[in-house]
């Protein structure tokens, strides 16, 4: 990750005094300079401290994604009109680029969720497990439905073999979440080759904590 330079002055810049988790006293987090800035805590996966980024960068990126969809629709409409007349359309929006932008935001969110979850479990382990598990379970159900609808449409319009293959990834809403995780998240949150490992690792961790919660609270609806 790049480190953005800021004019921020931190109270504690002694990063050498920080210890790896598990060694002696717990690591001391640097204080935020202003209330609305976020300091990225040091974790086993990140050695960068004091970088103010995630929420603000992500907010900007999400706004870009939001503006991009109406533009994409307009582009598609123009392209189809031209193609239906047998002509080549003017230069268009790069579809894979839009897909990559979504992937970037989703990976950042998954990492933020993991970090936030780890911070919460120190104070409220079962509450954090319940909240994250419930959220991700509902989320995966949503993906199962969205993917199912998309796959059916492809099945109807394009190729029966491929459509069935895609539909085969959906084992029913109830089982989809677990299936998705066991298959490395292919049906939901499938990302570029380099990113899959990161997403899958995080999802496995979250699923593992959900399983632990369910074992301890078997009558819970979460």
């Amino acid at each position, binding site marked *: 990750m790049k480190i953005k330079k800021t004019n921020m002055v931190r109270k504690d810049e002694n990063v050498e005094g920080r210890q790896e988790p598990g060694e002696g006293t717990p690591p001391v987090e640097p204080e935020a300079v202003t209330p609305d800035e976020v300091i990225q805590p040091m974790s086993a996966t990140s050695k960068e401290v004091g970088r103010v980024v995630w929420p603000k960068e992500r907010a900007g990126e999400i706004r870009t994604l939001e503006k991009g969809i109406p533009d994409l629709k307009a582009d598609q409409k123009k392209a189809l009109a031209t193609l239906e007349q047998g002509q080549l359309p003017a230069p268009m929006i790069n579809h894979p680029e839009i897909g990559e932008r979504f992937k970037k935001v989703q990976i950042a969110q998954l990492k933020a969720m993991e*970090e*936030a979850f780890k911070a919460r479990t120190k104070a409220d382990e079962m509450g954090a497990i319940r909240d994250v598990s419930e959220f991700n379970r509902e989320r995966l159900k949503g993906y199962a439905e969205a993917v199912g609808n998309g796959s059916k*449409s492809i099945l109807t319009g394009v190729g029966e073999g491929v459509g069935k293959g895609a539909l085969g990834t959906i084992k029913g809403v109830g089982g989809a979440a677990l299936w998705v995780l066991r298959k490395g998240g292919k049906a939901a949150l499938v990302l570029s080759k380099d990113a899959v490992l990161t997403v899958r690792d995080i999802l496995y961790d979250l699923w593992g904590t959900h399983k632990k919660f369910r074992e301890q609270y078997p009558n819970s609806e979460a």
Partner: protein
Amino acid sequence: MDKLLFVHREIKHVLEVLDYLTSDDRRKLMAVIANLTYDELVKILKRLYKVETEYLEFKLKDTKDTEEFLKKLNPAHE
């Protein structure tokens, strides 16, 4: 660029956005449509555009919902 080639490429690009399809799925699909006529391909592209925007709209909502959840999960990160 040849218009047939253009449509093939455009279909391939849209399929890449549908990240729930594996590369094997995409390859099979491209093989299935390899010998279709131009008009048939444009019809397929029209359907795929719809699938693409519906999927992206879903992902946008999911992204926003996740952002709200992250704020609640750890208010210190807001």
